[in-house]
């Protein structure tokens, strides 16, 4: 499997990354090297191995329903790159026709 420059451009759009043409070319090369490295795993015969999506043999962990106060709002907003006195401020990402 090999990624094309178009695929990398599309992933960049989904990740809201603005890449210039040179970056797309360079990153396509990098990503393909990574993929190639991982694709060696395909050489292993896993026909008799159960899929493992979890490593802990634990199930059914719950908390009981009950509300507690959250963080003070100053603390909530403290880590934000930009905030008003009550909300996070983000660049406007409107649901436009192309989703960008």
């Amino acid at each position, binding site marked *: 499997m090999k990624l094309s420059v178009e695929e990398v451009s599309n992933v960049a759009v989904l990740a809201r990354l603005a890449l210039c043409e040179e970056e797309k070319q360079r990153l396509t090369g990098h990503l393909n090297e990574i993929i190639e490295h991982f694709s060696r795993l395909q050489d292993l015969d896993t026909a008799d191995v159960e899929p493992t999506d979890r490593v802990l043999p634990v199930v059914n962990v719950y908390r009981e*329903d009950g509300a507690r106060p*959250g963080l003070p709002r100053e603390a909530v907003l403290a880590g934000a790159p930009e905030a008003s006195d009550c*909300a996070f401020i983000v660049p406007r990402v409107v649901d436009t026709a192309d989703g960008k």
Partner: protein
Amino acid sequence: MTSDTQTMAQAGPYEAVIGMEVHAELLTESKMFCACSAEFGGEPNTRCCPVCLGLPGSLPVANRKAVEFVVKAASALNCRINRATFFHRKNYFYPDLPKAYQVTQYGDTPIGIHGWIQIETPEGGVKRIGIRRVHLEEDTGKLMHVSPLTSEVDYNRSGVPLMEIVTEHDPRAGFDQINTAAEAREYLVQLRAILTCLGVCDGKMEEGSLRCEPNISVRPAGSATYGTRTELKNLNSFRAVFRGIEYEVRRQIETITSGGKVVHETRRWDDENGVTATMRGKELEQEYRYFPEPDLLPFTFEESYIEAVRGGLPELPSQKKLRFCERGLSDADAATLTQDMALAGFFEQAAEIHGDWGKVATWVLGDFLRLLNQSGADVAGAGVTPESLAAMIRLVEDGTISGKIAKSVFEEMFKTGKSAREIVEASGQTQISDEGELLDVVRRVISENERIAADFRGGKEKSLGFLVGQVMKHTGGRANPGLVNTLLRRELQQAD
């Protein structure tokens, strides 16, 4: 009705296939994966913690009640409950979720699969609408677009437990499809009745606790393949659901018949202008890069647990409706009463106390429902109780008040919480059934309206109505109408 017919007429050889994706916020006290309050409202960003803000190092733990609510709802929707289930991450970059992914359930093992709801179509038929899946996920935060360049984000809703219910459109599953806007609305009405009956969701569409995103496609009637579908958002009422779908079906048919192509996209319903408009192209499913959520452990349900939940289900709206019909109510009346459990409960209590289910239904579906709608109050907040309604109807029956006065008495009961007897006694509105007292008025009315009296004697039966009206006017509406009728006839004939 008119608009239905119009769609049918314009649809011509086309049929619509409508899939319903409904999101219901669960009525838990706390959020899905943390202990922040899940209650509606609150000052922005005051119900947040490291978990629902997606801060590094925080770990989610599932809310037991939310899981139970979904098992309950899925059972009531006739679903098969998967014995083992787990969460996935749905990855996307949009600031309504701070983690850049939503915790949800993907694939073949959501909590509930393969269920159904029965609906009645406007034509009087019955359809069994399949439900493909019922799963649990988390709600997102709210974006407010405050300026051309920036948006404000409030994460109070982020992480509130959300149940998603998706209909089955594959005919191989053996269920009926939703084909019209009216059927889609009916499906939603039934679904809402079930969820509110179970107490798992408050069903308030205007507050967004129940949201519906239909996907719509059209195809030549009888075709085996589907047309390209669009998804509709921003439907905040039953009316909007109906109008939005109807508009979209028509738009797609017009697009196709005029040689165009329907584009796979999300469209936003504009309620004010009654149109849908392009919102955004859909990200392809695989681009969400779903994978099992590593921070949460799977759930397994014992058969005994599933049985216990099923056994503990309350009487569902459809069962209640049948029972009401057995007590002599019409299908339509029983259907309206059982769409709202509070209303159904109120009605049933009043009917039990009074004994005449039909009479009580008339008051509950007529004046009570009208006053509830006018005032915006809910059943519990109204001044009338089942006991006080039953007592008022008895006052009408024993002739203490007339049916007409009962209407205004009921309105005052609704507003003040007083009993009918208190109101009637305070205002002297008791019905006049005393023959002597009425006879004076009757004679006066006849002498004041000699020409009309003569008309009646001349065979114009209708004239009596006018004279009855005059007696009512003179007595402030308190005269016993039956007695007035008898007395008028007697007096008019005697004077002959």
